[in-house]
C-alpha cells in the first residue's frame, strides 16, 4: 500500500469518527442556565438519574468507575462471585473488602446495599460465637447501609432497612439483652446522643420516620407494602415500651412511653394509605363506613317492599341444583371435602345483595333504592378493605394494648409480676409469692375491664409462665395452689393457644421449675 492510499484511509477514518461524534455531542450537551441541554441531559434530569440527584459524588467511586473502562458491570459481577466465595471460606476481611469495591463500582445499585447489608447484619454476624463479635457485624451491616444512603440520598428502602436492622435485629435477636446493652454503651455509633435516647427501638424509629418523610415528599416506595412501611415507626414505639417493661422500667417512664406509642398508633390510623384496590384508606375509618352502610341499608329497607329479601332468598334456594341443595342441607360436620367447596359456593350464591334487593323496588322509588344500594355496597367494600388491612397489622389488638397499657392498674400488675419473677429467680420465695398473688389480683381487674386481652397468646403465655413459677413457689413453701384459681380463664385460654402447660397442682416442681439449676459437669473423659 502506497503512502497516498494510507493517507486517504486515515482521512476516511477521521471523518467517520467525527460523523459519529457529532450526534453524540449534540445528544449529550450539558444543561446550562441558558439551555436545557441535550436529550441525554434532559432524560437524566427527568428521571433523577444524575449523580448529583442521586447522592454524594465520591471521587474514589468515580475513579474506579473510569478505571474499569465501561466494564464495571463485569467487574461488579466478578467481585460478587468473589464475595460469595469469601463468605463460603469464612474470609471476612476479604469479604467486606469485596463489598466495598462492588459498591464503589455501582454505588446507585440499591439492591446491592440492601442485600449485602442484610448479609452482614443477619448472616455473617451469626457465624461468630461471641455476642460482642456478633454485635460488631450487626453494626457493620448498619454502617454499610448508612454508607449507601450517602450515595442514594432519596432512597426510602435503604433508610427503612437501616431503621429495621437497628430496631429489629438488635431488639429481637436471641442476644437482644446483650445487644441492647452494647448498643447503649456504643459511643462510636451513637456519638453525642444522650444516654436516655440510646435505645435501639427509638434510634431505629428515627430512620424509619426519615424514610416516611422521603416518601411523603413524593418519592416512590418500591418493593414494600405501604401499610407495613408506615406501621414500622409506630411499632417501634410499642416495642420500646415492651422492652422497657422487660428490663424492669415501669412507672411514669413506661406510662409516657405507652402514651407516645398510642399517639403514634392514632397517627397511623389517620394516615392516608394506598391499597391494592386503587384507592387510599385510613385505618380508623372502618366504623365510619360501616355506619354509612347501615344508614344506606336502612334507607334501602325502607324503600323495599316487605318480605323482598326472603323472597329472593327462597328463589335462589329453589334454583339450586340437586348437588348444591344436598350440600346445603347436609349438616356442616357431615360434609365431604367436595361438598364443603360446593357449600361455600352455595352460601355465596344465596347471599342477597343490596342491588338485587333494589331491583325489586318498582316505580318512582327505584332510582332512590338503587342509589342507596350502591352506597351500601361501596361502603361495605371499603369497610372490608380496611378490615383486611387492619388484620394484616393486627390493628385492633395493638390499639387495645396502647389504650390499656398506660393505665395504672396494668402498669402495677406488670410490675408486680416482674418483681415476682425476679424474686423467684433469686430464690426469695415469700417475696415472690406475695408479688405474684398481688400481681394476679391486679391482672384480674385489668382482664375484667378489658376481656379482649385474653385473646392475646403472648399475654397468656407470659402469665402462665409466671403462674407456673407461682405454683413452684407454693410447692416449695408447702402450700397448696388455690382452687379455683383467680386466672383460670387465662390458663384455659393458654391451653387452647399452646396446649396444656401447667403441671398437676399437687406434683413436685420439675427440674425446670426449680429456681436454681445445678451446673452441668464436664462429660469428657481423660484420654487413656
Amino acid at each position: 500500500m502506497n503512502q497516498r492510499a494510507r493517507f486517504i484511509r486515515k482521512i476516511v477514518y477521521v471523518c467517520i469518527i467525527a460523523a459519529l461524534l457529532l450526534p453524540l455531542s449534540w445528544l449529550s450537551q450539558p444543561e446550562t442556565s441558558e439551555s436545557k441541554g441535550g436529550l441525554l441531559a434532559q432524560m437524566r434530569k427527568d428521571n433523577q438519574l444524575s449523580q448529583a440527584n442521586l447522592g454524594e459524588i465520591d471521587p474514589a467511586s468515580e475513579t474506579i468507575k473510569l478505571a474499569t473502562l465501561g466494564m464495571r458491570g463485569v467487574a461488579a459481577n466478578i467481585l460478587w462471585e468473589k464475595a460469595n466465595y469469601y463468605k463460603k471460606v469464612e474470609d471476612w476481611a476479604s469479604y467486606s473488602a469485596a463489598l466495598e469495591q462492588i459498591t464503589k463500582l455501582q454505588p446507585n445499585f440499591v439492591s446491592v446495599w440492601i442485600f449485602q447489608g442484610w448479609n452482614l447484619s443477619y448472616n455473617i454476624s451469626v457465624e461468630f460465637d461471641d455476642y460482642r463479635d456478633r454485635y460488631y457485624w450487626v453494626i457493620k451491616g448498619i454502617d454499610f447501609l448508612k454508607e449507601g444512603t450517602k450515595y442514594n440520598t432519596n432512597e426510602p428502602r435503604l433508610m427503612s432497612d437501616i431503621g429495621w436492622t437497628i430496631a429489629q435485629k438488635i431488639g429481637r435477636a436471641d442476644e437482644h439483652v446483650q445487644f441492647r446493652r452494647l448498643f447503649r454503651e456504643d459511643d462510636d455509633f451513637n456519638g453525642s446522643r444522650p444516654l436516655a435516647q440510646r435505645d435501639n427501638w427509638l434510634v431505629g424509629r428515627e430512620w424509619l420516620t426519615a424514610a416516611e418523610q422521603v416518601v411523603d415528599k413524593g418519592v416512590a416506595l418500591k418493593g414494600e407494602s405501604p401499610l407495613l412501611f408506615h406501621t414500622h415507626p409506630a411499632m417501634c414505639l410499642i416495642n420500646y415500651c415492651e422492652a422497657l417493661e422487660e428490663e424492669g422500667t415501669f412507672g411514669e417512664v413506661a406510662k409516657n412511653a405507652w402514651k407516645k406509642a398510642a399517639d403514634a398508633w392514632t397517627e397511623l390510623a389517620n394516615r392516608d394509605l394506598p391499597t391494592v384496590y386503587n384507592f387510599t384508606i385510613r385505618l380508623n375509618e372502618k366504623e365510619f363506613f360501616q355506619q354509612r352502610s347501615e344508614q344506606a341499608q336502612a334507607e334501602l329497607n325502607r324503600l323495599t317492599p316487605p318480605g323482598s329479601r326472603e323472597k329472593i332468598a327462597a328463589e335462589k334456594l329453589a334454583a339450586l341444583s340437586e348437588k348444591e341443595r344436598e350440600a346445603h342441607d347436609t349438616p356442616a360436620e357431615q360434609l365431604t371435602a367436595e361438598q364443603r367447596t360446593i357449600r361455600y359456593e352455595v352460601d355465596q350464591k344465596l347471599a342477597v345483595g343490596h342491588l338485587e334487593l333494589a331491583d325489586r323496588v318498582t316505580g318512582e322509588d327505584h332510582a332512590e333504592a338503587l342509589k342507596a344500594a350502591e352506597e351500601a355496597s361501596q361502603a361495605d367494600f371499603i369497610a372490608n378493605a380496611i378490615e383486611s388491612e387492619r388484620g394484616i397489622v393486627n390493628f385492633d389488638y395493638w390499639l387495645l394494648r396502647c389504650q390499656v397499657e398506660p393505665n395504672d392498674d396494668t402498669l402495677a400488675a406488670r410490675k408486680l409480676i416482674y418483681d415476682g419473677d425476679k424474686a423467684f429467680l433469686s430464690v426469695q420465695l415469700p417475696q415472690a409469692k406475695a408479688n405474684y398473688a398481688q400481681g394476679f389480683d391486679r391482672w384480674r381487674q385489668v382482664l375484667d375491664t378489658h376481656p379482649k386481652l385474653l385473646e392475646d397468646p403472648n399475654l397468656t403465655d407470659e402469665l402462665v409462665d409466671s403462674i407456673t413459677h407461682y405454683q413452684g413457689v407454693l410447692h416449695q413453701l408447702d402450700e397448696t395452689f388455690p382452687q379455683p384459681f383467680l386466672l383460670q380463664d387465662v390458663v384455659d385460654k393458654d391451653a387452647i393457644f399452646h396446649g396444656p402447660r401447667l403441671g398437676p397442682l399437687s406434683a413436685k416442681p420439675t427440674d425446670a421449675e426449680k429456681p436454681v439449676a445445678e451446673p452441668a459437669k464436664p462429660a469428657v473423659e481423660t484420654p487413656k
Partner: protein
Amino acid sequence: MVLDSDPVVFINWLRPALFFFLQAAAVLGLVALVGGFLLAAFRYGPALGGDATYRMLKTALSDLVSLSPRRIGALARLAVQESLRRRVLVGFGVFLLILLFAGWFLDTKSYDPATLYLSFVLTATTYLVLLMALFLSAFSLPADIKNKTIYTIVTKPVRPGEIVLGRILGFSLIGTVLLAVMGLFSYFFVVRVLNHTHEVDIASLKSTPGDTEGGRSGRTTLAQNHRHQVTLDADGNGSTDIAQGHWHEVDKHVEGDKTTYVLGPPQDLLTARVPAYGKLRFKDRAGRGVDKGINVGNEWKYRSFVEGGTLATAIWTFEDITPERYPEGLPVEMTIRVFRSYKGEIEQGIRGVIVLKNPTNGRTSELKTFTAKDFSTDHMKIGRKLSDKDGNPIDLFDQLAPSGELELWLQCIDENQYFGVAQADVYLRARNASFGMNFVKSYLGIWVQMLLVTSFGVMFSTFLSGAVAMMATLASLVLGFFTKFVFEVAQGTVQGGGPLESFIRIVKQQNVTLQMEPGLSTDVVKGADAVFMFFMQSVTSLLPDFRQFSTVDYVAHGFDIPADVVGVQFISGLGYMAAVFAIGYLFLRTREVAR
C-alpha cells in the same frame, strides 16, 4: 491461615520434580527433533533433511557451550536502554498513584486491616510488574525485526542464544530494580498505615469484676476505626484485648502525682510466626479412630467438627519437641471454630480441654480447660513442669515427649456443642521470624513470576509478531493463574462438560446439571471435547502454575514463608526458564535473520 494440603518439603519435592522435568524435556526434545527432521525432509528430501537436522543440533550444542557472558551482558544493557526509552518508569508512576490513593478504595474499617493492606500491596505489585514484563518482553524482538534494527545486532558476531538470553536478562534486570523499589515503598506504606496507638480512656476504668487484688478494666480511645478493652493488674500494667487482629501492651507511668497509661505498638499485627505443624487425626464420639470429624452442614469442608460431651477428639501429633527448641515450654496457638446446636449461655463461650500425651506409653498431663475464641487465635503457654492426671509432677520433655514426639488431644466439654478444626488450626509457635525478611521472601515469589513472564514473552516474540506474542504470553499467564480449574475441566471433574459442551450449554442457557440429549450430535460434541481436553491437559501440565509462586497469604496472615517454599519456587522458576530459553533459541535459530 488456611492450608489445604501438607506443607511442602523441598527434599521430598525435588526428586519427583526433577524426574518430571527431565521426562518432559526428553519428550519435548524428541518431538522437536522428529518434527524438525520431518519438516526439513519434506523441504529438502530425507538425506538433506537429516543433514540439516544434524547440523542444527550440532550448532545448538556449540552455541550453548560458547555463550559469552560479555556479549550477553552487552545485549542485556541494550535491553535495559530500550526499556528506559520505552518509558518503563511509567509503570512505577502508576504504582505510586495506586499507593497514594489506596485509602480511597480500601475498607478502612476492616475486620483485619493487616491482611487487607498486605494482600493489596502484594497483589497490586504482582499485577503491575507482570503486565510491565509482558509488554516489555513481547514487543521488543518483533519491533527490531520489523524495523530491521535487528541486523545491526545479527551482523555482529553474536549467537541467537545470546540474543534471547540477553533480552531475558535485560528486561529481568529492569523488572528487578522496579520490583525492589516497589517493595520498599510498599513496606513503608503498610508499616505507616497500620502503625498506631491509643490512649486509655481513664474515665472508663472500673474495678474488674471478680478481681479481689485491685485489677481494673476499661477501654482505649478510638484510633483507626477501632478501640480495645483494657485489663490492668493492681500495679496498673496490663494489656488490651485483640481487636482487628492485634493487641497492645499497657504500661503505667507515674510522674509526680500524675498517672498516665502508655500503650505500646500493635502486637501480632506485622509478624512472621514460624509454626510447627502437627499431623491431625480424629476420634469419633465413641472414641474410635476416624479420618474426619463431623460435618455440621458447612458447604466448605476444610474443617471437621468434634462433638462436645463425648469422646470425640481431635489429636495432633507433633515431632521434634525438645527443650532446645522450646526452652520456655510449648507456645500453643489455636484457631477453633465453634458450632452451637443450641444457644446455651449466650455470654459464656464454649469450653474445651487440652491434654498432652506421650504417644509411646500413653502417659497424659492433667486437663487444661479453655474457652474457645471463635475466628481468633488463642495463645496458650504450656510450661515444662506439669502434673499428670493423678496430680503427680511430670516433666514435659522427659516424661511426655522423651522421643521428641508428643500428642495434643483436644475435646469440647459442653454437650451437643461442637469444635471445628483443621490440621493448620493448632500449631506450636516455634519462634518469630523477621516480618521484613518475610516481606522480602514474598517479593522473591513475585520476582520469579516476573522472570517467567519475561522469558515467555521473549520466547514467543522469537517467532510471533508483537501483538500475537503478547496475547500468547497473556494466555500463558492467565492459564497459569487458573491451572487448577483448567486441569479440572480437562479431567472432566467440573460440571458442564468440556469447552464445546459448555459453549452449547451457554448458548442454549441449559443448566449444568441437566444431561445432554443422547444422540449423534451429543456424541460428536463429547468426542470433540475429549480431544480438546487431552490438549488442555497436556498444555496445563507443562505450563507453570503461577499461584504456586504467590505467597501473599503467608505474609498477609502473619506466617513466615518456609525456606522449602522459596526453594521450590526458585528451582521451578529456573527449570521453566531453562526450557523456555531453549524453545526461544530454537525458534530464533530457524528464522532467517538469525542465521
